[in-house]
Each structure stands twice: as C-alpha cells, then as structure tokens.
C-alpha cells in the first residue's frame, strides 16, 4: 500500500464486488488456534486459506478460531460448515491440503473424504 488512496480505492472495489457476487450463504471455517494448533502450523494453514480465497476472489466466508477440542494429535484442525453440506473436520492439515479444501470444498462443494477425521 503506497498511500491511503490505495486503501480507499480497494475499499470501493470490494464494496462493488460484494454487491455483485455475494450470494448470502456464508461458509463457516473454524481453525484450531490453541497452543497445540499454533505449534503444529495453524498460522501457516490459515495464511494459505486466506491467500487462496484472495486468489479465487471468494469472500462469502466467516473465519473463526477455537482452542483445543481434544484432538491435539490431529492439529492443525480445520472445520468447514457449508450450507447444505455436513459439517466436517479435517485433521493434520498442511498448506497444500488447505488450498485444495478451499477450492474443492469451500468453493465447489466437494468434501475431500480421505482427509475428514470427523463428520456430523
């Protein structure tokens, strides 16, 4: 960002974009950000998610965090809730997995069964 003008320009672009694109159905992603999650790479996983969302221009999403949920050995943990699909939790999520989860599950509604450790 070189100036405040850049920020204002981006703000106005995003506003227009939201008007055109927003479908009203928000996907909810929850990432484990307790001590174990952080030590296992949750920060990098989240970064990959945000980066992929930015590239795909997808922002109908809510990103939340949770502390330990008793599955420490499977951290980093990522839970995805998309309207119309079961809520699923992916375990031992890597940066590469995170990118695919965004594209296949969050955007294209295809759950990646092999990586799911819990489903409800």
């Amino acid at each position, binding site marked *: *960002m070189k100036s*405040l003008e*850049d*920020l*204002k320009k*981006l*703000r106005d*672009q*995003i*506003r227009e974009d*939201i008007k055109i694109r927003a479908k009203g159905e928000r996907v909810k992603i929850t*990432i484990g*950000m*307790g*001590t*174990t999650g*952080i*030590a296992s790479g949750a*920060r*990098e996983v*989240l*970064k990959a998610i*945000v*980066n992929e*969302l*930015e590239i795909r221009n*997808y*922002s109908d999403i809510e*990103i*939340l*965090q949770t*502390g*330990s949920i*008793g599955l420490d050995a499977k951290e980093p943990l990522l839970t995805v809730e998309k309207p119309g699909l079961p809520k699923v939790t992916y375990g031992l999520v890597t940066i590469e997995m995170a990118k695919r989860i965004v594209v296949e599950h969050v955007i294209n509604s295809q759950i990646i069964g092999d990586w799911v450790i819990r489903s409800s």
Partner: protein
Amino acid sequence: MKELALNILDLLENSAAAKAENIMLIIYENTDKIHIELKDDGSGIDGNPNRLLDPFYSSKNKKIGLGLPFVKEIVTLCQGSMDIQGKPGSGTNISFNLPKGCIDLPPLGNIVSTIITFITLHPEINFKYEHVIGEKFSIFDSQEFKTMLEDVPINHPKVLKLLESYLENNLKNLYGGN
C-alpha cells in the same frame, strides 16, 4: 515454538479468550536484547499472576495450559526476565526480556504473519502494534484502518493482503532498508 512470533500469537489468543477489546503489542529490540510486551483490557487475573506459569493451571476446559509455560521456558533457558500483572477488571500486562546472544533463543520469526492471522480471526478487537529497533520505530493501529474501511471488513481477504504488504514494508524499513 519455532519462532517467538508464534509464542506471541498464542499470548494474543489468550487476550482474545479473556474478552479483550483493545490489545497492544510492543516489541523493543536493540543489539543485545529483545523486549516484548502485551497489554490487554480483558478480564484480568484473579489471584497470584505467577500461577499462570504453572502448566497444570488453565481456566479453560482442560487439564493443562501450555501457552505461558512455553514462554517461561525460553526465559529460564536464556536467563531473561518475565513479568505478569493483572487484576480482575483492569486487564493483563505480560512482558518479557530476552538476551539476543542466547543460543536457545528462537528467532523473532514472522511477526507480520502473526498479526495478520490475529486480525483475520479477531477483526473486532482494536489492535495496536509498536516496534522499536534502536532509533527507529513503527506503529500500527487497526482502528485507523477500520475507520478508513467504513463498512468493508478489515478481514476481507483482499484487505488482508494489502495490510500484509503494508506491514512487511514497514518492517523492512525498520530493519535497515533505506
């Protein structure tokens, strides 16, 4: 933790869990030491603050809490110092000092990534960050950005990308640059 920035993220998450609305992170570095300070206006600490350093203490729904003991471990290994202050109703202030020469000292690491992660997850918290290196300093205040953004969320992926490059640039100037 591989980076002090990851310990910092962990402490920031503690502040968020304590329902802080305002958080300030100060990093002060010179050639021989690094000082890190976190102030929040969350629930504060009931009782003796030092018991939080005990891994067998956690107010969360589990038996152990490792965030603060991890920091304490580095402080002990490097013979630095650490201070926790906080009373119920007046927030919490955690600071620690570490000598840079210590072989067990993890690098500061990616502090920008820590801040971006925290803003992604807690857009409603007003987050201030001050980084001082020798004579130079930089200040960031998320509230200023939020004011400018009006109704557009600060954790929109495109805003985060811009914020990241903004913070990276500030840091580059701080560490020498030109």
